[in-house]
Structures are given as structure tokens and as C-alpha cells.
């Protein structure tokens, strides 16, 4: 079990991670979801020992990172956001190097190299220099390196950024396979679909804090059965506020000049009625979007902004 408690890390006056905590069980994928700058990578960096937290503890199967970093890291596999590979070396040589650093030797190293190459579909190109690989192949090798030593905890930091759909599906399949074997996976992404599809539990992060946590169902329940109405145009916040103020079905999630996010209560047709009232008052609305209850809706409800803002 991975246990993170009261984790904080600042860079100067910026609180990159602010008192966060979560637990992940074996065979579970925990997704950290948030926009760029939310604190996901800082959290991952603390968990893999690259950054020393200002406060808090990190434990894996009872081994504390602070007190025994080598033992902790022996149980840890990292798949960083960058394709951290050596282009001059082949995939096999890369795996031998990283596997060797993780403590594998001799026959075990060779066997695991063969196994992970097979898992990510790179066996036939294993002898080629990595610089000749496509982006998707590099990503797959990046993943293979993280799991070569069969870690207890696999940290995946945006592992599918910038690759085609086929490579992405391959990576997600491999991750599911790893989890079936009982590995703990901590997964960061800003792809909602990926988080929805893959993660057992999700922590929504913004400004260094976990705003909400739970399974997809639990998170949706937080939003309720209502819909999220987003309006963009040339209106003053006060104008909109005066229209919706007395509507008991509408909660203003965020309101600023030219943009408003409204949580419109349950009941089909409610959104249409609210929208009609707004437009009848002559508010200059240029763009309307209606969001069904999903992670995007959860994120919007919690933060008042789009995940990719």
C-alpha cells in the first residue's frame, strides 16, 4: 500500500503541493488529474525521491522514503513525462542499463528484458538505436523501462502525451496488465477520457491541493445529476448575476467578465429554461456549452475552469 500523508512542497513563495494525502492499494490505479501546474509532477517527484518534501511522509508497504530511500526505490518504477532514454543505445541496451540500475543481473535481467520488450511490442526492433524509433515506440520503451524490475509501485507521469491512438491504447493495455499482477499504479494525466477509462480512483488537483477524491461514480455523485452550463460572450458579471440570483435551480460556479459557469439543478429541460431566461434579458452570449455529468463537469464544478485552461 502506498500511503502519502500531509505532503507539502514549496518553491520559494509558491506552494506547489499543499498538504495533500492519499492511499493506493495493490492492484489499484490512482489517477492524479489536474491542469498543467496543478502540482501533479511535483507530487510524483516527491514520491520517487527526486524532491525532498518540506513536510509529510511517504510510505510503501511500510517502508518510509525518508528513512530508507534505497529500499523504497527498489520497489519503485518510474515512467517520466519525458522519454528518458539513450538514443545512441538500442532498446535492449537501454533496458539492460536501467534494469541493472534497478538491481537485476544476469539471467533475470535478460529474461525480464525479453518479457517487457514482448509486452510493449518492440521485440523485432530491440536491436535498433532508439533515436530511429517513432514517438510512440519511444513511449512504449519508456514504459517498459519503468516496469522491467516488476516494481510494487509504478509511477506514470503523463505517459501518453503526444502519441497516436494506437500507441496510447497499447500503453493503457500494458498498464492494465501490470495492475492485474497486483502493482500499485499512480497515474497523472490531464486527459479526462484516459482517467475515466483507466483509473479506479481519482484525485482532482489544482493549485497544489487535492480538491476531491474518489471513484468516478463517487465524483459524479458530487456533481449531482445536474448539468454544467458554460456561457461566453460580452456581458458583465453583474448582469448575469441579477438574472440567475433568484433561480433556486442554478448555482454560480464561477463568474467573471465574459464568462460564466453555472451548475443547473436536476431535471430535464431545466437548462433550456435557464438559458431562455438569460437570452430573453438580452445578454450578449456568443458561445454556449452544456456539460453532462462527467469528470470534466466535476472539474468545472470544483474549480470553475476547464481542465485544459
Amino acid at each position, binding site marked *: 500500500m502506498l500511503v502519502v500523508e500531509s505532503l507539502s512542497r514549496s518553491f520559494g513563495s509558491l506552494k506547489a503541493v499543499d498538504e495533500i494525502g492519499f492511499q493506493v492499494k495493490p492492484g489499484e490505479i490512482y489517477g492524479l488529474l489536474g491542469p498543467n501546474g496543478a502540482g501533479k509532477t511535483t507530487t510524483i*517527484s516527491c514520491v520517487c525521491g527526486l524532491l525532498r518534501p518540506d513536510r509529510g511522509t511517504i510510505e510503501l508497504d511500510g517502508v518510509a522514503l525518508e528513512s530508507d530511500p534505497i529500499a523504497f*526505490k527498489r520497489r*519503485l518504477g518510474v515512467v517520466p513525462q*519525458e522519454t528518458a532514454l539513450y538514443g545512441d*543505445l538500442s532498446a535492449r541496451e537501454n533496458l539492460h542499463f536501467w534494469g541493472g540500475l534497478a538491481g537485476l543481473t544476469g539471467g533475470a535481467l535478460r529474461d525480464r528484458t525479453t518479457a517487457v520488450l514482448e509486452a510493449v511490442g518492440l521485440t523485432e526492433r530491440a536491436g535498433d538505436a532508439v533515436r530511429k524509433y517513432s514517438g510512440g515506440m519511444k513511449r512504449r520503451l519508456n514504459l517498459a523501462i519503468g516496469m522491467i524490475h516488476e516494481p510494487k509501485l509504478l509511477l506514470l507521469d503523463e505517459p501518453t502525451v503526444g502519441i497516436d491512438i494506437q500507441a496510447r491504447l497499447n500503453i493503457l493495455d500494458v498498464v492494465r496488465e501490470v495492475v492485474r499482477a497486483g502493482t500499485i499504479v499512480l497515474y497523472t494525466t490531464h486527459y479526462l477520457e484516459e482517467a475515466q477509462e483507466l483509473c479506479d480512483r481519482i484525485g482532482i488537483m489544482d493549485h497544489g491541493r487535492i480538491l476531491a477524491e474518489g471513484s468516478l461514480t463517487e465524483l459524479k455523485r458530487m456533481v449531482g445529476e445536474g448539468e454544467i452550463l458554460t456561457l461566453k460572450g460580452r456581458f458583465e458579471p453583474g448582469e448575469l448575476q441579477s438574472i440567475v440570483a433568484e433561480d433556486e435551480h442554478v448555482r454560480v460556479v464561477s463568474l467573471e467578465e465574459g464568462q460564466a459557469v453555472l451548475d443547473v439543478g436536476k431535471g430535464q429541460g431545466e437548462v433550456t429554461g435557464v438559458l431562455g431566461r438569460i437570452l430573453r434579458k438580452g445578454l450578449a452570449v456568443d458561445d454556449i456549452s452544456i456539460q453532462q455529468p462527467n469528470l470534466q463537469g466535476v472539474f468545472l464544478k470544483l474549480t470553475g475552469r476547464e481542465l485544459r485552461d
Partner: protein
Amino acid sequence: MRIIWLIMRKDLLRRWRSPLASLVFLAFPFVFSALIALAFGTGGEGRMPRFKVALVDEDRGFVAGLVRGAFGQERAAQFLEVTETTHEEAMQLIEHNRVAGAIVIPAGFTDAVLDRRPTELRVIRNPAEAIGPIAVEETAEFLALFLEGAASVLSGPIERIRGLTEEGSADGGAGAVPGAGTLGGAAGQISERPVVPAPADWAADERVAEIAVAVNHALRGARDYLLPPAIRLERADAPGVPVLSDTTSPAEPAAASADDDARFLSIFKYVLPGMATFALFVLAVGLTADVFRERRRGTLARQLAAPLQPQKVVVGKMLATMGVGLIVALLMALIGALFLGARANPIAFLLLCVLFLLALTGFVNLLYSFARSEQRGATLASIVMMLMAFLGGSFIPLEAMPEFVQRLAVISLNYWAIEGFQALLFSGAGVAEIARPLVVFLAVGLVSVLLGGALLRGQLARGD
């Protein structure tokens, strides 16, 4: 050790797969040394620094006067600053490193030349200097060659000159050869002025004019001749002066050669250690910057997330840099041995290379650890590298530099490396003789590795 070996092996494998940079470092010292040797050694446009030389005239005869006069000529003065002195004072000047060497004109030199008997010019080299003694030897060789030619071609006029000098001696006392004639530095011509000043009571003007005409005729006809050597050049090192370098072993018999190729190789050999030292510095700076490349690509962070102590990453990378440097140094030594005839004690050479590279990579690593980016690190390292190269004598021989610069040279790693390599390559030194550079390198290496490790720990703790 397994982790360090893995990291080192990985970096060496990467270098092997992309060898261009390392090959450039290998070629660099040879190309630059050859250019310098061409410029200074075989009639290039470049100028040698001005060297100080002591002249000891134990002969005080007519031909010795010609030699003394030759040093006063404009072209000779461009390269040499001559101090006339006694033998004892000359040795003191060498001992205090004030001159690159001494040329001794022995007693009886004039008589021997005029009689066309074999004789010798003695060159005493300052073993603590590198290139200066070569310049002194070259000068003496030129003089020997010129005087041989003059003695053969001017045999007729010389007899008459001798008559004059003997008359002069009879009138003016022993050794009274006032002034002596002047030699045109490069062309080997005797000037139009009288070879021997003629006091009114010496000889009639007509006789002097007659001799001058004969001299001119003889020289004109002899310009293209090559004459058999009659004056031997004897070389020796000044005893009791610590050896830095020399061209030949002290006991080696003189084998004077004015041949351009020989001169080229000679200067090439002297310049090569400085250039090789500089090349290894450049190599260390270039390869150490790889830490920043690894940081940029994320491979450094990934290594630091592996179950290992962070210092092992630094040590592994340092050892890889040292490995590449050692290969380059050994290849340079091999080329030097095959084409320049350079020989060195292999154990001492290896030890010097390893410890120099340890100091170098540790030091450069330390420099980089002060920088926050690859660009800043490279700028800082380049500035320090150039400063050390100039101070240490990689580009310009130290003896040609002002005294305060020479005193500062000890802070340069290049200085110690050049001292060590020159002693090994040209003086047949062993481990004991290069103990000073070895100790310096070991100390610098250990201190910089420890300091660098401490800085790394601090940086990791801050998350830099």
C-alpha cells in the same frame, strides 16, 4: 561498484556509438602543434619569443669577435637578448633561470678556425626551460655553419687578416682584436665596413681594401656551396638545475642538424604536451556537460529515482570521461612514439594521465556544479580553461612570459601536466621525478570530488 560500472559503461558505449567528438579531441593537439611547429620551425611567418642567452668568450680572438658582433645584428636581436659574461656568471644566470642557455667560445677558437682545425662551440642549456634552449642551439648551429663556410671560402683573405691581427697583436698586446667585424645575420655576408678597424699605425688603407674586395669575391662564389663541418657543436645541460625538459639526454653526443624537418619535429615535440593537455581539458569540459544533457532529457532524474546513491552517478560519469580521456591520451602517446620517436616510462605516463584526468574531471565537474544551466556551465568552464591554458604554458612557453605570470602558473593544472609530460617524454623521467605533479593532481582530484559531492547533495535537497 556494479552501479558505477554500469553508468560508466553506458557512457562509454554512447561515446563509442558517436565517436566524432572524441576523434576531434584526438586530432586537435596534433593539428595545432603542427601549425605552431610549421610557423616557428620551417620558415613560417610566426615569430619566436625573444630568448635570453649568455655569451662566454674565453677566446677573445678575431673570430670570437665576429660571433659577438653577430649577436648585435638587428635580426639576431629580434630573437635573442645576449649578455656577455664569464663562465661562472653564466652558470649562475642559468641556475637562477635568467637565461635559456649559454654559448661558450672556448680559448683557442680563433686559431682553430683560422688554421681550419676542428674545434667546438659549447652550448650549455638551461634544463628548466622548454623552447629557449632550442633557440640557443639553433643559433649556435647557424654560427658554426657560417664560420665553417667562412673559414673555407675565405682561406686566402683570412691568411692576410691573420697577418694583420698578428701585426696588431704585436703592436697592441695579446688578444687585442678591437671591435671585430660584423656579420650580416641571415645571409652570412660580411658587411662593407672594414672587418678589422684599422688604426693608422696598423696597416695601410690599401691593404684593408684589398682584403675586403677578396672577401666579397670569395663569398659571392661560395653562396651555393655546402661545406663539410669543421666546427663541432657540443651541447650540455647545466648541472644542478632541476630538469624540466631538454632536447636530448645530457650524455648524447652532439648531432647538429639544421635540417628543417628535424627542427619541425623538435618544436612539434615541445608544443605537443601543451596542446595535448589543452585538448584533454576541452574534452573534459565537453563530456562533463553531458550531465546537463542528461538532465534535459530526463535520464538524470530517472537515474536518481533508481535505488542508488546519487554520488555514484557523478562518479560513474567522471570515470567515463576519464576513460575517454585516457584513450585519447594513449592514442596521442602512440602517435607521438611512432612518428616523433617520443619515449616515456609507461607506468609513470599512465599514472600521470590517470591522475591528471582525475583532477581535470573533478575540477570541471565542480565548476559545472556552480552553474544552473549548461550554457552557464560551459561559459564558466571555458573561461577557466582558457585562463589555465595561458597560465600553464599550453599556448606560449612559460619562459617567454613575464615573471609574475610564471609565478602564477602553479595554480594551473596545465602547468603541472606539461611539466609532467615533458619530463616523461623528453627527459626519461620516472614516477619519482614527476611526484610533484602526481601529488598535485591527486589532491585536486580528491578535493574537487568531495566538494562536488557535497554540492550535489545540496542541490538535490533543494530540488535544483
